[in-house]
């Protein structure tokens, strides 16, 4: 039987039962590889449940530094009887299957094209440990030990990580180390280690990764740090997966970094609201009052916030919202990822509304863009929605370290303080003095008798006086459009990527690919795969809405463009057609909306199929190959 080979290039997947402590053990595995300086990207695929249901943890190792999902599994570690059948099936031919051999493997689970490694995890732990909870927890550590041998993980690193992990609970270290060693020893004694797939420190690894001192962090933590550095003082929220950890992390860092040295009191306020309407209401109130405020939520919360988002748009109040997208519609799949709130966010609320959206693709961008979100919100006096997703927000990503320029100054936008007010002849809250659609606002309490006005969600004239006159209304909403136009030059520009060399290029016309957020990594990988096959595709990564004109240019420079996204309806494609005035025949959707992050293989397959099927020019959606593992 031909076994899969590969140094620093394979996919390991763990099948566990949730609530059994597997996550931290599996994370230990990924982190160890990271510490070895080898590109790794872990993904936690967990159920919307607290204990007892199937959960998976997928770890991709990629010397080239691909961080998206590849698709397929080379080595499966299965410690969940409920799912063993599908787990066995999901292993690539020539792959490997590690399982708890305390109970013998059922006949129907035996394949002759994969290699099995039985380890009596339960039995070993029952024997070695007394405490029931430990017996369960350490099973996970035992198989990590075994993997250390099978895949060649540096043992000392694992030990270090354990002692970091159990700082404070030292007495837990020794049993864990013991479990590691049990697994390691069992593997070395019973299997030929290491396997044809293995790790090799210092083995050939993409230079851009070796160079910078990468960190391993998730997008929600990065966004929280962005809120700290961006000067957010008010966080109002309502718990919802997968956004909860944004505020958890904000709280953690704020307690460390935002305590007033003199008094020990807090330079921040975190309010757990009664629901999302209230959370957004609090952010609107704080923003109106001149504090940098934000909330974080996911789909259902976005729907509930839409009335307030419309108010903030029309009353021109700065608001920052982090939408960590999950699978919709409705409750959908709360612990699965998607990019399906694009339209709902762009046009949130009734009437003619448009909102600024940011699309981070890495934790680093989650950090930078959150800071920027506050600047943009105050500059444009309007809601700014950062569109993250579960995959980016809750998984650990290898990323260049976060950087901070100490010369950064917050852009508080056009705010008149008492001095400025005294200097102003005639001031009107909605007078477009500068012609950019942005007017000067004042904050409550600023001046004894100048600059007071009434903020409202109803129509008004330039002096902020309630008005039902058509002229006043039209003048006002046209200005809001002008303001949105102005924003185009201030939001993050789309990023092109150095074109990939193609040896024997096929005749295809000029091909382009557009994508955003977590679709980026697998998209780049797919483009390189296709380059091998002779397809030359230029790429542009969208980073914000409203769209910068370079997006239009990119589209016009190409004959056919694939829009790669993770939703059913090709929402970004629709947004582009609406706003860029682009005909449909040019834009072909490449979609995955199964809830698990899109893979390079799916993207490549859909594009390949589409290019082969002639004439594919105006097909809305390329053949759908959903990756549903």
């Amino acid at each position: 039987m031909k076994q899969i080979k590969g140094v620093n290039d394979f996919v390991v997947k763990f099948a566990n039962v949730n609530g059994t402590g597997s996550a931290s053990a599996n994370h230990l595995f990924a982190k160890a590889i990271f510490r070895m300086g080898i590109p790794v990207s872990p993904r936690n695929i967990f159920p919307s449940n607290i204990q007892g249901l199937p959960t998976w943890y997928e770890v991709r190792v990629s010397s080239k530094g691909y961080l998206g999902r590849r698709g397929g599994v080379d080595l499966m570690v299965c410690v969940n009887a409920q799912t063993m059948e599908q787990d066995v099936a999901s292993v690539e031919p020539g792959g490997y299957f590690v399982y708890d051999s305390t109970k013998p493997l059922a006949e129907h689970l035996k394949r002759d094209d994969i290699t099995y490694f039985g380890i009596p995890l339960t039995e070993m732990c029952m024997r070695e440990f007394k405490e029931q909870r430990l017996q369960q927890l350490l099973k996970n550590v035992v198989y990590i030990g075994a993997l250390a041998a099978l895949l060649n993980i540096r043992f000392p690193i694992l030990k270090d990580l354990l002692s970091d992990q159990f700082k404070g609970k030292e007495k837990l270290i020794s049993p864990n180390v013991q479990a590691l060693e049990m697994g390691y020893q069992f593997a070395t004694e019973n299997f030929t280690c290491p396997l044809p797939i293995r790790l090799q420190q210092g083995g050939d690894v993409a230079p851009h990764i070796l160079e910078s001192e990468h960190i391993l962090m998730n997008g929600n933590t990065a966004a929280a740090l962005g809120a700290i550095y961006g000067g957010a003082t008010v966080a109002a929220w309502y718990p919802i997966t997968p956004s909860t950890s944004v505020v958890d992390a904000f709280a953690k860092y704020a307690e460390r970094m935002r305590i007033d040295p003199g008094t020990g009191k807090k330079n921040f306020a975190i309010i757990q609201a009664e629901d999302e309407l209230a959370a957004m209401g609090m952010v609107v109130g704080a923003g109106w009052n001149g504090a940098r405020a934000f909330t974080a939520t996911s789909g259902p919360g976005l729907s509930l916030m839409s009335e307030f988002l419309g108010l903030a748009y029309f009353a021109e109040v700065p608001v920052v919202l982090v939408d960590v997208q999950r699978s919709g519609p409705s409750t959908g799949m709360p612990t699965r990822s998607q990019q399906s709130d694009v339209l709902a966010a762009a046009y949130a609320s009734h009437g003619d509304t448009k909102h600024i959206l940011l699309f981070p693709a890495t934790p680093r961008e989650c950090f930078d863009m959150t800071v920027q979100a506050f600047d943009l919100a105050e500059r444009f006096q309007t809601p700014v929605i950062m569109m993250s997703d579960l995959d980016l927000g809750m998984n650990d990503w290898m990323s260049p370290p976060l950087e901070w320029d100490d010369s950064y100054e917050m852009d508080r936008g056009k705010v008149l303080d008492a001095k400025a007010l005294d200097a102003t002849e005639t001031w009107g809250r909605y007078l477009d003095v500068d012609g950019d659609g942005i007017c000067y606002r004042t904050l409550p309490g600023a001046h004894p008798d100048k600059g007071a006005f009434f903020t409202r969600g109803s129509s008004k004239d330039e002096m902020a006086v309630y008005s039902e006159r058509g002229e006043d209304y039209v003048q006002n909403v046209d200005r809001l459009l002008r303001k949105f136009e102005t924003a185009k030059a201030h939001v993050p520009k789309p990023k092109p990527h150095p074109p990939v060399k193609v040896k024997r290029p096929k005749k295809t016309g000029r091909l382009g690919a557009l994508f955003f957020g977590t679709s980026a990594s697998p998209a780049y990988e797919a483009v390189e795969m296709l380059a091998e096959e002779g397809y030359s595709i230029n790429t542009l990564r969208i980073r914000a809405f409203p769209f910068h004109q370079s997006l239009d240019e990119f589209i016009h420079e190409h004959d056919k463009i694939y829009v790669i996204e993770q939703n059913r309806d090709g929402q970004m494609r629709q947004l582009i057609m609406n706003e860029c005035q682009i005909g449909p025949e040019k834009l072909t959707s490449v979609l995955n909306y199964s809830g698990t992050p899109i893979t390079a293989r799916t993207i490549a397959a859909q594009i390949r199929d589409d290019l082969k099927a002639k004439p594919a020019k105006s097909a809305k959606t390329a053949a759908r190959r959903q990756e549903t593992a």
Partner: protein
Amino acid sequence: MTYIKPNFRHPRLPTNALGYTVSDYDGAISTLCAGCGHDSISAAIRNACFLSSIQPHRIAKLSGIGCSSKMPTYFLGKSHGFNSVHGRMPSVATGASVANRDLKYIGVSGDGDTASIGMGQFIHLIRRNVNMTYIVANNGCYGLTKGQDSATTDLGSVSKIGYANPFDGIDLASLALLQGASFVARSFSGDKEQLEPLIRGAMAHRGFAFIDVVSPCVTFANHVGSTRSYAATRENLDAMPLDCVPMREEIRTQYEAGTTQAVTLHDGSVIHLHKTGKDYRIDDRSEAMMALQSAKAEGRILTGLMFLDPNSQDLHQTLDLATKPLNELSKDELCPGSRVLDSVNQGLR
């Protein structure tokens, strides 16, 4: 601002401790119906702030949607105001309050705005003890949408189109009491003598001060059969009179011993409650609850200060906020800088 009455300052107009005349507390001309109870409340707020010598621009006015929620336009033209969305003013006020702890906040709402669509936010606002004065102009109907019953409309009260309300009305004062509000009062828009000192007390109180004000809707709920008409209200009123003497002001009037109950507020202001026989210890929640319930049972409208806890812990304290308002913090106070970030990076390797 054009919409603020041009206030010509008459030389002989009396001024308060800050040198402001009462007209400095005016707002725009009301567009409410002539005789609407809400206009009397606007006047009472204006007078209360004048008498208590509060700087108008240090007050922020918030409201939801409704005739009542239009009120903030009609008083304190020198103050910022926020007419938010229907029923959600409590959350906006909460956010504003934590953003700047140094301003005084007046929230004005209606019975529909608070008891129907706003019920959830109202209860959680109380629970957080946000430092503000919250006034419900309670006319027992939806004025702005032309007279439908609201959730506070009394059982059996007959609407203008002739239907008797089959549901029991929610008593907001009792609800506020049960949910732990630190200042609970009820009044009547037609009772200036009582309403003004109540508002002054509420503004001086630290924490959530709630005033449920019966405020007749002359257009849709002032007919015979409506339990919130001027006539019905006057007829069933049991008013407990009081005075409020703000901090730094010496007590001018002398009260005969035993005729009043005095409560000192957190900021030093003193409220004098005049004994009426119907009254009880102001710091006893259950007594207050009993009084309200039995009055309701008798179909009477008990007005006055029902309950007061001068030393309650407001949201700023609960959140342990720094004394400097959050919206005034500078970059240096907010941004930890690159060094700290390096250590964060370090921890992520």
